């Protein structure tokens, strides 16, 4: 037996699964467990994007081709951008389109179970984890938005045939500093990029100008926006571009009202629109946009693209609560540490800060001057603190509040655990401005509700920049959160009584110079002429006015009803989080979800029919084979290519079957098939072939370092590594390992290392890489530190 190979052996699907999280639109064959163009290839992909009023509506159509002579099953995965919500999903069964139907989640689950017992495997699409066993419970932490991964099992995919899938979603495109960024991640974070035999992208911009991004797909500007068309396109770049809003109006009003409930004949609908999305509604919907002028000055630091500190501001008192709980580890911990380094770097000597690591209890919380030595000492102390079980954020916030006093602000760097309820968070923060950066998973409702600013793990670069600028920016007037009536709305309406209600802030909030903010609401009484007045010290003269109508009938801004519904649902979810569930709120969420077609924590898409009794997922484990089966499975046997017949055992309380095995001596590296035989309670059998990669070769690394640096410098380190590398770190001296991330523009992985103080001379930087099979490779490089 070859024990040496136990650790290198892994099943790539699960590691692939985590990698796939950031990629849009992949159909992964269950048989191989990872994208495999020899089994299922992307034959055609069409993406239609319409952006208007800071809001994008995206329609993705994909045709996958089964190249094998056997029926295949696949898992369709689509990682959504942060603020996106799925509006439609459909699978084509031959020439029949099977649309997803929005149902209450519990009911969808019940039907799903019923169908599965009849050996029909319906597609159940819900936001959050694909194996969300208890949807009603697990789903409540999710929001309609949140950058989650959608996944659904697609089967059968007939032999040598094609499968067509459609997905439609909407998302906000925040405009910050006069520009907005749209990004649909096509490029896998690791591994070989898939190839689309045909790729078409059409971008229609209603009120903005297109600006290409070098790191994105090479889109060509057109009169309408931009487009791309190509064949055999390697999806090695994301679909990313920037927009610059046209015009210089400080305020703008859009409205939609369709009391007839039917759209007139001849009205051209965009690819992402369906008439069913526009149900009859007596009320009208409006969106008031505000874009105050000015922008933050841009500054660049040597060698690193980091946000510049805000130039003019009073000294700040900042408490930073750093999550050191056991649940906050790996990439999340590293991201939080990077955020921390970034914000501490932005502090000025006159600032004061308190770094409060916390798990079940917070560490000591004393204000310190923001000098380099103090910062270094605090970072060292943090790294010396072990991760502990549990997390009590309210207690940490209370300590932070005590440290910074009335005029301080609090930054929380967390993996999202131990937040408790928003009431407790608000009480603990005691009115101090609360900035929360969530580093992994999804931000819970409590954090969303309690924070003044929240940074999601999937935020774009410009959103991240804005967040960290705001952490230290001069104090802004706190905007009221949540719904507003026409009386307490941030704007005033004169010249009529439109009966505004349920007004919600959208886009960048609070307002910032150069950014696009908005308020969406309903109106019951159309008015031909109204005056909207918005007061803000960012506006010339302290206010801006706009004369506009809330008309009887307006059909142009067809995104507004659903956009309002989303805002309304978000608000109801926040209330539920704060005050607990109320039947009328849940009923309203479900009704809005069904009416305007988007998934919420209480609803799900259901599409049928499909097949049954197939392993859903193989997870890695060294050397453990894990297969997730249907509940009815009674026995599972794995047949290995080296002759081993392994009876798998069920993991208690789960549908996971597992077996541990040894690889015989002399087995060469490569891709091997393992057959899994399943038997259910009725005696029915199913057989699936999975593949595993035996990889005993350590990854190679080619590092690149600057020739020299000085103590305190932030240097950019680069490394080229094998394609199957999943973790790549660099460590300078005794410092913590800094993750290196893939940078498409640089064509290699890049990270930032701060050179610690110390005597000049040559210092070693250790690069370490771990591949998908957990082989480790390392290499050393020297850095010359000058005085």
């Amino acid at each position, binding site marked *: *037996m070859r*024990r040496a190979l136990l650790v290198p052996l892994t099943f790539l699907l699960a590691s692939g699964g985590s990698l796939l999280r950031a990629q849009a639109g992949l159909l992964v064959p269950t048989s191989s467990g990872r994208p495999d163009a020899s089994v299922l290839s992307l034959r055609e992909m069409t993406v239609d994007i319409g952006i208007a009023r800071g809001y994008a509506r995206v329609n993705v159509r994909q045709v996958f081709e089964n190249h094998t002579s056997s029926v295949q099953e696949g898992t369709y995965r689509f990682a959504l951008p942060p603020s996106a919500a799925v509006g439609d999903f459909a699978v084509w069964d031959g020439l029949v389109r099977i649309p997803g139907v929005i149902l209450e989640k519990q009911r969808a689950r019940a039907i799903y179970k019923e169908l599965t017992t009849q050996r029909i495997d319906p597609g159940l699409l819900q936001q959050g984890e694909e194996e969300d066993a208890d949807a009603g419970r697990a789903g409540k932490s999710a929001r309609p938005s949140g950058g989650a991964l959608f996944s659904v099992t697609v089967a059968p995919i007939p032999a040598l045939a094609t499968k067509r899938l459609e997905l439609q979603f909407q998302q906000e495109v925040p405009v910050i500093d006069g520009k907005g960024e749209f990004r649909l991640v096509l490029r896998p974070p690791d591994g070989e990029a898939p190839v689309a035999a045909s790729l078409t992208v059409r971008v229609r911009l209603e009120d903005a100008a297109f600006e290409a991004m070098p790191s994105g797909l090479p889109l060509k500007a057109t009169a309408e926006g931009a487009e791309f068309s190509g064949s055999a396109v390697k999806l090695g770049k994301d679909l990313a571009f920037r927009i610059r809003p046209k015009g210089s109006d400080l305020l703008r009003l859009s409205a939609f009202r369709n009391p007839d409930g039917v759209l007139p004949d001849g009205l051209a609908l965009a690819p992402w629109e369906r008439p069913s999305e526009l149900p009859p509604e007596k009320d009208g919907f409006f969106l008031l946009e505000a874009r105050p002028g000015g922008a933050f000055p841009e500054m660049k630091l040597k060698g690193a693209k980091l946000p510049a500190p805000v130039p003019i501001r009073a000294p700040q008192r900042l408490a930073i609560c750093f999550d050191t709980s*056991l649940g906050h*580890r790996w990439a999340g911990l590293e991201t939080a540490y990077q955020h921390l380094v970034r914000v501490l770097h932005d502090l000025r000597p006159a600032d004061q800060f308190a770094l409060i690591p916390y798990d079940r209890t917070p560490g000591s919380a004393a204000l310190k001057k923001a000098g380099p030595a103090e910062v270094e000492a605090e970072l060292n102390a943090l790294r010396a603190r072990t991760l502990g079980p549990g997390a009590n954020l309210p207690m940490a916030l209370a300590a932070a509040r005590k440290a910074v006093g009335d005029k301080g602000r609090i930054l929380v760097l967390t993996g999202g655990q131990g937040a408790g309820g928003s009431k407790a968070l608000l009480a603990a923060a005691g009115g101090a401005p609360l900035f929360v950066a969530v580093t992994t998973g999804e931000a819970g409702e409590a954090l969303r509700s309690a924070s003044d600013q929240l940074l999601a793990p999937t935020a774009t670069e410009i959103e991240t920049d804005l967040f960290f600028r705001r952490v230290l920016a001069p104090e802004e007037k706190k905007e009221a959160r949540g719904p507003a009536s026409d009386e307490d709305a941030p704007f005033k309406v004169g010249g009529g009584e439109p009966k505004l209600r349920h007004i919600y802030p959208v886009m960048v909030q609070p307002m910032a110079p150069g950014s696009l903010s908005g308020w969406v609401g309903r109106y019951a009484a159309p008015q031909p002429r109204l005056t909207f007045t918005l007061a803000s010290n960012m506006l010339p003269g302290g206010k801006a006015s706009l004369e506009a109508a809330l008309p009887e009938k307006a059909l142009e801004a067809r995104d507004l009803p659903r956009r309002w519904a989303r805002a309304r649902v978000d608000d109801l979810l926040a209330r539920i989080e704060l005050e607990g569930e109320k039947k009328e709120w849940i009923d309203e969420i479900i009704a809005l979800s069904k009416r305007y077609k988007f998934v919420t924590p209480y609803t799900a898409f259901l599409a049928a029919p499909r097949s049954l009794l197939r392993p859903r997922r193989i997870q890695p484990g060294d050397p453990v084979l894990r297969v997730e089966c249907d509940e009815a499975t009674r026995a599972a046997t794995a*047949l290995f290519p*080296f002759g081993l017949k392994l009876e798998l055992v069920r993991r208690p309380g789960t549908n996971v079957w597992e077996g541990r095995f040894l690889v015989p001596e002399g087995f060469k590296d490569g891709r091997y098939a393992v057959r899994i035989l399943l038997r259910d309670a009725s*005696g029915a059998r199913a057989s699936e072939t999975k593949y595993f990669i035996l990889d005993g070769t350590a990854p190679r690394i080619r590092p690149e370092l600057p020739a020299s640096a000085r103590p305190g410098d932030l240097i950019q380190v680069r490394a080229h590594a094998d394609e199957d590398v999943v973790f790549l770190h660099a460590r300078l001296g005794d410092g913590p390992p800094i993750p290196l991330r893939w940078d498409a523009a640089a064509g290699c992985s890049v990270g930032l290392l701060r050179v610690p103080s110390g005597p000049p001379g040559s210092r070693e930087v250790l690069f*370490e890489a771990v591949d998908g099979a957990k082989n480790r490779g*390392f290499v050393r490089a020297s850095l010359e530190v000058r005085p």
Partner: protein
Amino acid sequence: MPLAQSRKRLLLAGLALALVGGAVAAWKLRRDVRQAYDAPTRRVQPLAFAPLPAPAVKVRMWGGAEVAGVALGPEGLVLAGGFGVAEARGDLGEGLPTLQASALALWRDRPVVALAAGGLFLRRDRAWEELRTGWGTLHVRDLVESPGGELLIGAQEGLFRAAWGASVLERLDAAPVRSLALVPGGVVWAGGEQGLRRVDAGSARTMAAPDPWVDGVAVQGRDLLVLTPQGLARGPFDGPLAPVAGAEEASSFAVLGDEVYTAGQGRLLRFGAGGRPAEELPGSPVRRVFARAGVLFADTDAGLLRRGATGWSPARSRPASLPPGPSAVNALAWRDGRVIAGLFNGGLVVGAPGGTSPAAAGPDLAWVPVRGSEAWGVNAILSAGGAVHVASLRGVARLEGGALKAVEPKDAGAAFSLASTREGLVHGYGQGVLLPGPRMLSAFHGLPGNQALALAEGPEGSNLLFVGTPTGLGAIAGGRVAWRTEPGDGRLPHPWVTALAVRGDDLYVGTYGGGVARRAGRQPGWREPGAFAAFPETAGLKVNPGCLVEAGGRLYLGTDGRGLWRLSADGSRFVPLRLPLPSQHVTAIQAGPEGLYVGTPEGLARLPLSLPEEPS
């Protein structure tokens, strides 16, 4: 124009001719390739019989309970299986290099046995001889003696034939074999991972089967019976094979006269000439069924049963072995007079004194499985602080009152190591080290890696906890990482640290691929890694996790494939112990009052602690 037309016709005719010629060539090529593929690789390699030496030390062993082969010889019943080889008078496997047997047959009335780890052995004149061939080590799954006295060998490496007294071994087919059946006239049916093969004097062909994985083949009259994961199927030799109704659950079968017996899901079914199943009730769940010399045997939890005219009766009690199920021992502990064994692909089993055994080997142990599924895929066991703790792929669990209970934190993932310190129990997880408190340290905090494969408390006064990871050795003091070694820094012979032991002031570090190194305690202080001195005789050794254990005042070393080693009395070198073990892959070591328990993938052994010194 006529010339042009003529040229055109000529061209078309040439093209047509070329097409026909191409088609014929393609057809011929395809036929030749198929024939070449189906043709037996009829080759021979030398065959020699090498006597095996008798073991110098008598060692008690416990392997798996399953019977793999039964034979009725002139001296009575012979069994082979996870427990080794046994006959009516007792253990017959003494002297074989490994414990678990995979196949058994009589060849000219002499037992010939195949070992699961590889190799084929003939019992002659009360001693074992190894059949050494030019084909290398064969992993044999089935053995059949032909009416002409030839031995047919079904192995992972193919189908082989040996004539009695011949000095060559002939390979009839290269496809892997799991089961064999012989038809009068010389045709051999062989089933394996690549399907059903029909092998005769001139050719080997793949035949249609209900499933490409064939577990069993037998012949009954003019019918062929084939067992696959889809159940039992039967049909004429030239096909097709049809499923046998009621035999879908079969995992083993035997043909006895006009009847077919199947075992599956613990049940034993009899299929008469009419093909209708009737259940046999031998009184204990049946794992496997055999028919030998007109007698039906069933391997059950109660031992091997024989079906006679009056029903089922014991043929032989179950040889001393672990409970039915997995038998790969990956961790060991000793507590309250009992041995606790953790299984590589299972939970815990406990051995308490009971039964009888040869006096020289010490008391026998009766093994029972431990209730609870909180530990599965056991990596380490620690008996400390009044309790037994278990680190497994399901986390850490505690053995209480004969049952397992999970220990917090339950979501920490797979656990690989345990250590008892003055502050309390330390858990080594795949994600770091959980210190009492509890507090977790990982690579983020300066450890060389996250996966804590080995833990050891430092020498008295050092206040250190050593952590072995695949990328180096770390030392923790006061809840912080005090120092670490790193890959490539040259301190250790290999960065993959799998075992740690502290003796006096010295730290011994076992690595996977680099042998053992020692950090002498006489170095000034423990504030830095210091210098490690490798034991050159262990260079390249793969030390298995946890396999560096002090027992009876000596340090023992368990390796992967190179057996058990011991540190010399003067502490200057490690010496291999040439002892019979279930396997040379040593995965666990534990000292007990009666001896040293050694775990392997094929079971465990108990060695006397008073082993003679090996010559240098």
